């Protein structure tokens, strides 16, 4: 379903992604793990047509994002690391906008909106403005939106960041349910090893832009001779702490937070 071969992405002199290859099978839940700045988000951006790879090739459902970006875009849903909803619109309006952009026929759009909002327990709140939602509700709405156009693949970039254990647990239950019923392939990144252990059939660990190991959770543990996925992860990536420089958007977010207070 997803095929990446020798992907490279350089920003100036920095190699964010350095020769990454992997395959994700249809209907599989595939987790991409790595410390901050390892190249997870850049890889997702390349897979989802937001960034062009410096070299290497990608096939999404057999299509090349470079030559058929719109066909590729129609085939996946994505939940970004940071929110991408319009707070000034209601939950239902956000879904409507998405449905129109993806050309989901009106009737189907309404049916699926209702089904998904009910599944993610947001149906009661459908006419409330998204700016009044909690972090967990926004996340749920974004995931519901990602499923609206019946994608073949769902990309989840750290979807549980900043959520409480209850919300995280519930979120994965829903994602697993839809993976099961709609046969959606799921590609996710996360920092929580227990989540990856629980939901993902296969895991790739990326560090400094390179995949250092991939396989099932069991295989990774065996390979490193460790008891838990977390230990396996630390054994593979070391225990130094990675610091990312803050970009303009981080500063803006800080500014907004200070301003709202």
């Amino acid at each position, binding site marked *: 379903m997803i095929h990446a071969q020798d992907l490279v992405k350089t920003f100036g002199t920095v190699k964010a992604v350095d020769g990454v290859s992997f395959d994700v099978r249809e209907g599989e839940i595939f987790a991409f793990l790595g410390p901050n700045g390892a190249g997870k988000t850049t890889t997702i*951006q390349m897979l989802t*047509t*937001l960034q062009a790879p410096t070299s290497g090739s990608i096939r999404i459902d057999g299509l090349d994002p470079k030559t058929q970006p719109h066909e590729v*875009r129609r085939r996946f849903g994505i939940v970004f690391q940071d929110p*991408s909803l319009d*707070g000034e619109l209601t939950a239902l309006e956000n879904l409507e*906008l998405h449905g129109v*952009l993806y*050309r989901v026929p009106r009737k189907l759009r309404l049916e699926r909106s209702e089904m998904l909002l009910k599944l993610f327990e947001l149906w009661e709140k459908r006419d409330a403005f998204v700016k009044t939602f909690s972090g967990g509700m926004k996340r749920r709405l974004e995931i519901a939106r990602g499923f609206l156009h019946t994608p073949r693949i769902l990309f989840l970039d750290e979807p549980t960041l900043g959520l409480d254990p209850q919300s995280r647990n519930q979120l994965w239950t829903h994602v697993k349910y839809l993976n099961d019923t709609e046969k959606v392939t799921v590609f996710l990144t996360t920092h929580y090893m227990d989540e990856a252990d629980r939901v993902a059939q296969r895991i790739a660990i990326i560090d400094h832009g390179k995949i250092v190991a991939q396989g099932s959770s069991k295989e990774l543990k065996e390979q490193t001779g460790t008891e838990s996925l977390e230990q396996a992860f630390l054994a593979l990536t070391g225990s130094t702490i990675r610091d990312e420089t803050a970009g*303009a958007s981080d500063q803006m977010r800080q500014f907004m937070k200070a301003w709202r207070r």
Partner: protein
Amino acid sequence: MGAVFILWLRQIKRYSRSRAQIVASLGQPLLYLLVLGFGLGPVYQQAGRGSYLQFVAPGVVAMSVLFTSIFSGIGLLWDRQFGFLKETLVAPVPRLHIMIGHTLGGATIAMIQGLLVLVVCFIAGFRPEHVSTVPLAILFMALIAVVFAGLGTAIGSTLQNMQGFQLIMNFLVMPIFFLSGALFPLNNIPTALAIVTKLDPLTYGVDGLRGAFIGVSHFGMMTDAVVLFGVAWIFFALGAWSFSKIQV
């Protein structure tokens, strides 16, 4: 086409829901209209030029269209920084459609805002010369709106953070307004000023509005319309180009 429409509609919805903002944005034009209109009125009258309120009202209308359309374009900066833009950029829709929807939405809002200010002007005592030329004035308002919504989109796509916003405000938007002849007649002004005013697209907008509303036009309404139309295309193309360059 669906994408253009839904993004246009989004702008209209957001605008109609921010009542406080609508009222607040009437404040500045009102200040110009009342303070300058009545404050400078007597001097203007003594100079033998008639009513200053009649003269300045089209300028104030043009000002509100200018501000609203540029700011709606700059709103793109917020969409970008707070994520919503990404949702539209990964959608299977050409970027040009997204840009057109956003920009036309901004232009429409600016038109509505301009009409509101026009009503306020009317209440304050402004009277168009002929009712028959009012549609022509509305056409000029639309042209101004499209010109500056295009420019706003270009700026919103290029700006990186809110600090740049002040820069744009003081070194672009305010000069465009003050140099447009919105507040003073263009006859007998110093040559240097005359040249600069001729380079300001809003000058032609204000002049066209004046032609339509009070029958006084410096360049002639035809010239005004042609210039605005040309600049609209240039700014729209500039906006589309900068928008296509946005990196997530």
